[in-house]
Each structure stands twice: as C-alpha cells, then as structure tokens.
C-alpha cells in the first residue's frame, strides 16, 4: 500500500475540482473562531469552557474533566463527548469547503480523534508522565518514565506509526481526516494569542526574539539551502528539478517550502510531493530524539533548546510540537531541582523561529522561480515567475498567528484592569483546543509515515541526502546558531 503522499502524487496531475478555500485560510478561520469564542470569557460568558482536558492520573476516573470550573458539573466523559462532537462538526464543515467527502471525513475523523485522544490519555498515566518525587508520592507510585504529560504526544505519534506501518489498509481508510498541516496551522493560530499573553510580561525578552528570528531566516535560506543544494547536486548527482525542492524541504520547512519551490521552478507536481513525504518521516525521527537530547544537554539553556527545535525540525507541526515536548521535559527537569521557569517560553521560541522561517517561503520560491524561468530553464515571458506568486505562496495561516498575537498583546496592555485579569484564563481555554490540535497533528504525522512503502518507492537515494544533510549539518549548525544567540538567556521564573 502506498504512502499517502505517494498516492497524492499519482493524482496530482489529474483534474480535481478546486477547493472553495485553501487549507491555510481555513486554519485562520478555525483558529480565530476558537480564539474569539474563548475571549467571551473576558465578559464572563464562558462559551468553550466545556472542552475536555486531561490531568496526569493513576485512577482513570480522575483523568478527564472540563477545562473551566463553570462546566465541572459535566464530568470528564461528557466533556470529551462534547469536544468530539464540536470538532467533528467544525472540521466536517471545513472538509466540505475543501471539497472533501464530508461523510467519509466525519467517519475517518471519529477514528482519528478517539485513537489520538486515547493515546494522549494513556500518555498521562502517572507511571509514564509523573516527573518529580513529589508527584510520584502524590500518585502513590515508586517509578515513572518521567515523560511529563506532554509525553502523550509521543504516544499519539507512536499510535499513528503503528497504524501506518502495520495496518496500512486502516491508514488508508482514515486518510481523509489525517491532515497534520491543517491541524498544526489551527494550533499555531491559537498559539499566537497564548504566546502574546506569555510574552507581555517580559516584552524586552520577547522583542529580542525578533533579532534571533532574523538570524534563523538567514541561516535557513542562505546557509542551509546553499549547502544542501550543493550536496544534492554535486555529491549525490540529483537533477536541478529534484535538488531544489529537496534543499527547500530539508533546510526551510519541509512540506510547504518543498511544494512552493517545486511550483516556483516549474517542477513536475510529483517531485515536491514525494520530497514532502520524506520530510515527514525524518521529522518523526527528530521528534522522537531531539527533545530528549535537548533535555539531557540543554536543561540549563532552555531557550537554546527551543530555538534548536525551531531550526532543526523541518515541518511546522513537528517543530512546534517538538518545542512543546522539549519545554515540558526541560521545565520538569529544572522543577525537580527547584527552578520553576514560566511555561510558554521554550514552546514560544520554537514556534516564533518557525513562523519567521515560514514568512519568507513565498519570497524564496519567487527568487528561485525567477532564476529558473529566466536563467536555468528560460521560458516564454508568460510563464516566467511573477511577483504576485510571493503572495500566492505566502503561508496565510501566519496572518492568523499575527492577529491573535496582536490581540493578545492588546488585551494584556490595553484592556481595562478588570478585563485584563481574566485574559490568562480565557486564553487558557483556547490553549486547551491548541493541545487537542497538537494531539491530532502528532497522530496524523505518524499515520503518514509508512517507512516500508517509502523504501519500496525507491526513496533510498533521497533518504541518503536527507540523512547526510540533516544529521551531518543542519542539526548541528542549528544548535551552534541557537547557542550563539540564545545562550545565557533563561525564561522568567514562574509566579
């Protein structure tokens, strides 16, 4: 059974009815809708406090609950059912706008949601998640894997990997709802508001991230890309058509950059799509390894760790998710030693770095398109790269991130005191949805990672370039750059 992206490649050239709206704009709408609904809590109207949240548990009956105390009367199971129902309705409507089969999507999403959330609940079992001796004592246990509650993401990822590699027919059956890019984009839009509220308390530190974000752009586009392109062309003998999307996928942002570059240089549609599937596989490997390395090596340099995730992990979903796991692991390790950092900074650093890198995808694709259509494969004037492609290829979901970030900052600084004091709680409810979309993202990434199918498709040479570039250069230069710009800077302490 073919990897999902390979299947996509086979129909890429076939005529399909155009979606009424792009996935990016849908992510903006969904993310903003959740954000706005959450803000109703500012005027004491709690519209989404029923969303389910999961706590570390030793007794399963205590695992689930509603996010807001106002809805505590519902109990965990009802909150979970309500969350499932709301997401199914909202995402089915989104599927309709994407011209997907709504019934098929709803059925597939049912499987995706319940398996992914069950994995999250399992990951919150005390023997997996409890970290400090105090926590272990609280749950009456003598050992724990100390993965923190966000280790649940790893369980969701593993569940997806098991399905992809051992139950390929089931993976294909639920493919309609396996949309990691959509889920992570919604999560990132919501994350903007959460990070703004977090950053508002330390604006100097937050604004200094911008300088470092610029460094990340320089590194990804000008240094990484050039080296990976050279390695692909000279060492591995790839054609220009393969090397350019490959370089963009490995150095900038896997899926989006590979597809934008492929479009810019007028490559065959299947080329960037196949590169994208490889990017997803390696992102999975990175997510399973790098956060733990970061905890072991960089517990005393938390923001270096966050920046490293943003620079080294090459899909939006995996990078931001890796930032979340890294934050959880590093905060826990420091908490065990009596140092309690304010949460949100490591995740926010990883997300901000990634967003900064994403902003320039359209510009880079245009630059490459200009070079290719004018100098490499000179085409008739009508087919040459045009400046409007910059906007066409700009990742629109970033607009959502900027809006929620700006709104969060305004609420933190510009709102009257009696409203401002409710902002963290309101944003917290939206953040619960962000966590759920993260869970869906992790699971979906796993489902799309059929290692055997990729190998059978002849990905060995592509994987070799990826391995050499990523583990031989990108990860370590990313760590060095993160160290140069973030070492010695720690998040504020909590409380």
């Amino acid at each position, binding site marked *: 059974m073919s990897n999902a992206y*390979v299947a996509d*490649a*086979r129909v890429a050239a076939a005529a399909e009815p155009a979606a009424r709206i792009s996935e990016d704009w849908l992510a903006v709408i969904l993310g903003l809708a959740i954000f706005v609904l959450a803000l109703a809590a500012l005027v004491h109207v709690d519209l989404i406090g029923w969303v389910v949240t999961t706590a570390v548990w030793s007794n399963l009956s205590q695992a689930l609950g509603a996010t807001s105390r106002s809805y505590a009367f519902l109990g965990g199971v009802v909150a979970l059912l309500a969350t499932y129902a709301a997401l199914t309705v909202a995402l089915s409507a989104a599927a309709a706008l994407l011209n997907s089969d709504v019934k098929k999507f709803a059925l597939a999403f049912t499987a995706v949601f319940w398996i992914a959330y069950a994995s999250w609940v399992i990951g919150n079992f005390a023997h997996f998640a409890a970290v400090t001796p105090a926590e272990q004592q609280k749950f009456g246990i003598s050992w724990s894997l100390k993965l923190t509650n966000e280790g649940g993401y790893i369980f969701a990822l593993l569940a997806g990997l098991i399905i992809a590699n051992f139950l390929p027919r089931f993976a294909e059956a639920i493919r309609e709802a396996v949309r990691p890019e959509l889920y992570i984009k919604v999560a990132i839009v919501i994350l903007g508001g959460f990070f703004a509220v977090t950053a508002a308390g*330390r604006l*100097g*530190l937050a604004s*200094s991230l911008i*300088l*470092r974000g*610029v*460094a990340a752009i*320089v*590194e990804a*586009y*000008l*240094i990484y*890309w*050039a*080296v990976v*392109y*050279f390695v692909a*062309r*000279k060492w591995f*003998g*790839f*054609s*220009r058509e*393969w090397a350019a999307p490959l370089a963009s996928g490995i150095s900038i942002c896997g899926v989006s950059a590979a597809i934008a570059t492929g479009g810019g240089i007028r490559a*065959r549609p*299947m080329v960037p799509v*196949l590169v994208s599937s490889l990017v997803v596989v390696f992102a999975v490997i990175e997510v399973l390894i790098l956060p733990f390395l970061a905890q072991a090596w960089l517990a005393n340099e938390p923001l270096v760790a966050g920046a490293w995730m943003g620079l080294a992990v090459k899909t939006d979903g995996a990078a931001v998710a890796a930032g979340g796991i890294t934050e959880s692991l590093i905060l826990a390790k420091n908490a065990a030693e009596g140092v309690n950092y304010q949460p949100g900074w490591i995740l926010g650093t990883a997300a901000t770095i990634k967003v900064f890198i994403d902003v320039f995808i359209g510009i880079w694709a245009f630059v490459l398109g200009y*070079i290719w259509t004018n*100098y*490499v494969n000179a085409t008739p004037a009508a087919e040459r790269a045009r400046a409007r492609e910059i906007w066409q290829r700009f990742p629109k979901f970033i607009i959502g991130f900027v809006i929620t970030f700006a709104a969060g900052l305004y609420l933190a600084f510009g709102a009257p005191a009696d409203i401002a004091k409710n902002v963290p709680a309101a944003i917290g409810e939206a953040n619960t949805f962000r966590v759920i979309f993260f869970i869906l993202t992790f699971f979906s990434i796993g489902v799309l990672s059929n290692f055997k199918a990729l190998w059978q*498709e*002849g*990905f*060995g*040479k*592509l994987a070799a370039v990826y391995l050499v570039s990523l583990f031989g250069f990108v990860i370590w230069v990313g760590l060095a*750059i993160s160290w*140069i*710009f973030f070492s*010695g*800077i*720690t*998040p*504020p*302490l909590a409380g």
Partner: protein
Amino acid sequence: MPQPDNIRDELHNAPGEPLLPIEKKLIAWSLTIGLGLLAVLTVVNHFIGWSGS
C-alpha cells in the same frame, strides 16, 4: 514522463547535470551573504541583545 513507481530508476539512471554558472553563483552568493549577515547579527546581538531573564 516517468511514473512515480519508477522513482528509483529515474534517480539512479538520470543523466548527470553539471552545475551551471548561475547555480554556482546562487550557492556562492547565498553562502557569502548568509555568513556575512550572520556575523553582523552576532555582533549586534552581542552589543544590544537581551542579556538576562
């Protein structure tokens, strides 16, 4: 046009494409500008970057 099933064959048997002058310029300029900007940003960070929490 090669089909996806023959990716292995396409990648292994594709004729070599030597680097064009424009490709060499793209690589060289990218690295030069990138390393230069990185040096500038490192200096700027050293003098005006946030130095503590």
